[in-house]
């Protein structure tokens, strides 16, 4: 069975159906990209998978590593190995970036019945990961996301990804608002984190991210459904023709 298996998913927000019968299967080690115009339901999908509570799943099922994902609390999903790099990471004043990450690392270890990571080891890994992602040490001491630039916030999400070592990482529009250098740096960091055991789900509006992170599969999402799936070339086709032809197909 696939690592992530979504069947006939329907999701409503405030009575309005946003996802309308979505199927998707992601295998370990694969990188999938979901592309679509604004309002197609891509970010809703990311949040539903991570366990955000404002969404109502009206039909369908999602299995992750053999478990019924929708039955689990957000923290249980994280413990199982699901990670969402958020489009708009929140600020938490008074909680340092480092302290937060250590709490998160140890919360996951605790949930998995593992002992806490020793502070010295944690700091060593954190410095390594920060170097890899291109995060200045000074940002590690600051309050979580407080006063971070847009690019710094996105990089910090990837830093968390590197530290929390999920089995499935969902990147929700991580490329939005990044200049080309930052985009390359984030892409390089993500590529370095690709392993045969880890899957990625890239949610993006633009094709350019996929120049740097080459996906195994590309899905076009329109109006709450995947209307077309293909290899990496599908992204190029989108780049050329835009979403217009798919919108017409959907209609």
């Amino acid at each position, binding site marked *: 069975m696939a690592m992530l298996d979504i069947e006939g998913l329907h999701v409503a927000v405030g009575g309005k159906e946003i996802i309308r019968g979505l199927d998707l299967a992601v295998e370990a080690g694969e990188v999938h990209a979901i592309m679509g115009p604004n309002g197609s339901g891509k970010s809703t999908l990311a949040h539903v998978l991570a366990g955000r509570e404002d969404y109502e799943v009206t039909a369908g099922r999602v299995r992750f590593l053999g478990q019924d994902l929708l039955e689990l609390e957000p923290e249980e999903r*994280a413990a199982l190995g699901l990670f969402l790099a958020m489009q708009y990471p929140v600020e938490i004043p008074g909680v340092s970036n480092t302290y937060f990450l250590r709490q998160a690392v140890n919360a996951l270890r605790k949930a998995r019945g593992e002992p806490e990571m020793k502070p010295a080891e944690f700091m060593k890994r954190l410095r390594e990961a920060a170097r890899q992602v291109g995060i200045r040490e000074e940002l590690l001491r600051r309050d979580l996301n407080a006063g971070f630039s847009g690019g710094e916030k996105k990089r910090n999400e990837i830093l968390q990804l590197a530290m929390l070592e999920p089995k499935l990482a969902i990147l929700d529009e991580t490329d939005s608002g990044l200049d080309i250098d930052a985009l390359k740096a984030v892409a390089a960091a993500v590529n370095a984190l690709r392993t045969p055991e880890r899957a990625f789900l890239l949610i993006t509006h633009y094709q350019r991210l996929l120049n740097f992170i080459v996906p195994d599969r590309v899905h076009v999402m329109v109006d709450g459904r995947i209307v077309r799936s293909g290899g990496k070339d599908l992204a190029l086709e989108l780049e050329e023709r835009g979403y217009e032809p798919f919108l017409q197909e959907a209609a």
Partner: protein
Amino acid sequence: MSTAVETVKQITEREYQWGFVTPVEEETVPPGLDEEVIRLISRKKGEPEWLTEWRLEAFRRWKTMEEPRWARVHYPPIDYQAISYFAAPKQKERPKSLDEIDPEIRRTYEKLGIPIREQEILAGVAVDYVFDSVSVATTFKKKLEELGIIFCSISEAVRDHPELVRKYLGSVVPPGDNFFAALNSAVFSDGSFVYVPPGVRCPMELSTYFRINAAGTGQFERTLIIADRGSYVSYLEGCTAPMRDENQLHAAVVELIALDEAEIKYSTVQNWYPGDREGKGGIYNFVTKRGLCKGYRSKISWTQVETGSAITWKYPSCILQGDESVGEFYSVALTNNFQQADTGTKMVHIGRRTRSRIVSKGIAAGRSQNTYRGLVRILRGAEGARNHTQCDSLLIGDRCGAHTVPYIEVKNRSARVEHEATTSKLSEEQLFYCRARGLPLEDAVALVVNGFCREVMEELPMEFAVEARKLLGISLEGSVG
């Protein structure tokens, strides 16, 4: 999948952990208050004539006074004749050594996590144990005596150091200061006394642990701390009480005096029983705390973490009399369920170039009401005085209230006074973010709230900061929604 609200409701509703009653035989004065009762208390404590008169004078003042009604708290009228003003565990006399203490009382403090002994957990802390109306033990007295530091119950101080007590008692909070201070002056039973001689830096934290045990009583303790020239002392008080359906009155008075270049750091972790989830029972915490920065460059710093009590009415204050003296107030006040807190500070600038800093963090959850009330008063002679006030409120849920009532009076043009205030709501986004990274909901709430309070928590002595952080988490259980 359940919502955050449901999840919290499902979480084991942990009760107030300190709510047990110790089965100890207590001697209690029948309820009621008149001059006879005051004489009786004074006699029981073997007090000198002047103190009996001092009490009676306070009582006569009290009878003419009205209970303050300006605070944003609501409670039914208190029947002061229904309270017993003295309760003490039965014992022939105060035990001479720690080994002679009643095993039941010993067990009580063990259960509370502060065993009566001079070792292990509290190695760096000397503790005075006040059980209902009397002090039952004080640790590390010998070691402190070697440095000339006096740390004992106030009853002992009256007996052994009458000149100091007579000089300073009521010098900062006069008996007629306010209704509750007058009541306390009339009936105070015990409390702690500290004197640090000139130039001595007290090598350990001094601490008093207050425990209300008996039913139908109030606790009226009195604390007096004097830091002589160039000395330093850090003092901490903690408190708990059994869970009862009735409301119990706690009306304490704390007076601090700092002479030239002396510093007093006074920290409180207040965890009186707050009442149940429906608002039944709990302690009425009506307390007068004031410090006098009497000397040049003296400093008094109040740090409080207030999580308990049904009602809190408390304004630890600084009178900045000495030139260049410094007053600080760091406060976390957390209310949940039906708790009400009206707390803040007064900074009265009298001397030149006096400075004060106020950092108040109010957290309101459940149906609670949380008010910051603060006064910054700059008198005419306070040339170059400075104050900075920062006042932040955090709301959890939509049935609680946070209120900020700052009073600023400036009579000197050279003064600089700054006031910053914010109000925010604990956001679903923050909680979701933490949970998506693996933190369980309760840990997520505690993390965000502790972040909100960090500036204040950093002021607590190390030994207690960890406990206080946990206490915030526990006090918030079941608050999200």
